[in-house]
């Protein structure tokens, strides 16, 4: 397992078109980024296809990482998430509306208590802030981030008008921000 610093160094070398560094970066980060594209797109073929595009982007945009002050891994995950979300919004993935509920069930099964506990130890700060939100609003924010749901999809799932959903989420996000800045 590479340290965050090692990944940042690899990214700097990739920015200089170092293929060996790119191979190492792929070896150490592709499982995490595949986890991202697979969770958001929920279709193996789409997720594999998206992951290829993500690494092509990383090769070409590695120089941009230097300009951000994010951790290297967060930057890579942002590239993967943004690409997967763009695919979803462009209708290239998760095309059938009927598969949404099915896929939702799979996700609920996957977040078992044991896994939550492991993940929780790493992100206590944000968990504590999520606990201050109403359960359904907390769930909506997490689902949007982790599953890639749009306002439209969230409104349908929660059976509320789109504008209500928008107001809910905006308020919840601002509460989260206040809590995180305490």
């Amino acid at each position, binding site marked *: 397992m590479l340290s965050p610093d090692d990944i940042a160094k690899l990214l700097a070398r990739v920015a200089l078109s170092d*293929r060996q560094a790119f191979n190492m970066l*792929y070896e150490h980060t*592709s*499982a*995490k980024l*595949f*986890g*991202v594209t*697979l*969770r958001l797109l929920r279709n193996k073929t789409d*997720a*594999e296809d998206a*992951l*290829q595009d993500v*690494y*092509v982007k990383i*090769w070409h945009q590695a120089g941009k990482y230097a300009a*951000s*002050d*994010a*951790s290297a*891994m*967060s930057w890579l*995950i*942002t590239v993967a*998430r943004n690409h997967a*979300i*763009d695919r979803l*919004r*462009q209708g290239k993935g998760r095309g059938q509306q009927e598969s949404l509920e099915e896929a939702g069930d799979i996700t609920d099964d*996957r*977040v078992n208590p044991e896994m939550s506990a492991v*993940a929780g130890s*790493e*992100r206590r*700060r*944000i968990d504590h802030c999520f606990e201050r939100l109403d359960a359904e609003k907390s769930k909506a*924010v*997490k689902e*949007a*981030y*982790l599953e*890639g*749901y*749009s*306002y*439209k999809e*969230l409104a349908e799932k929660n059976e509320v008008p789109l504008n209500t959903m928008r107001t809910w*989420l*905006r308020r919840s*996000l*601002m509460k*989260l*921000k206040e809590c*995180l800045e305490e």
Partner: protein
Amino acid sequence: MPTGERDDDALAAEYVLGVLDQEERESVEIRIRTEAAFAVLVRDWEHRLSDLNSEFEEIPPPASVKAGVESKLFSSEDSYPGFAEEGGFWNRLGFWRGFAALAVVAVIVLSSLLVQQTDEQVAGVTYVAALSSGETDAEFVVLYEAETASLKVTQTGGVKPTGKDYELWFIDGDGPAISIGLVDGEGVKAPFIPDHLKGQYKEGLSLAVSLEPTGGSPTGVATGPVIAIGKAKKI
């Protein structure tokens, strides 16, 4: 925080969360690129929500994904190291169209010139090949007279870099490239077709010139970039 800023902050949060539709995402992306203050709001939200990243599991992708990435990024370089170029030199249709047209014209013009010059020698079947790449300005014409097995190589374009030699290669179908000597070479390095290859010198045979260290490839296979290539044509 004034209302406008608060709205921008909420918009940045919505963008990072991923809930906006495509049109809204695109307009936000333009603002990220053009408004530094707005880009900072987005970056701060990316940082805030990044704590959730630990919920993404690690799932190793199949090996085919890496192969696909490599073919998208590097396939042109791997197949022809001499022509490493973004966009895939060997895949560019324009190149092949231009090259084919150029080659045909070159063969017709140059062969007629050379045939006139060597009219007395050309008794039996004669082959001509115009070698070029479109990528470098090096061009050669190779004339081969089957009856006497005489080979004549003339450089018609480009200048040889100092400390390098041009080496001529004979490529029959999918077979390995066989060195047939140095262009401008003397003695044993002079280009000639060995007896066992004479029967293989035929229409469609490929000839190529590579750039090699002085004295030619030390290994017997082309080590430098191929700078010109062409096919033999019966005239």
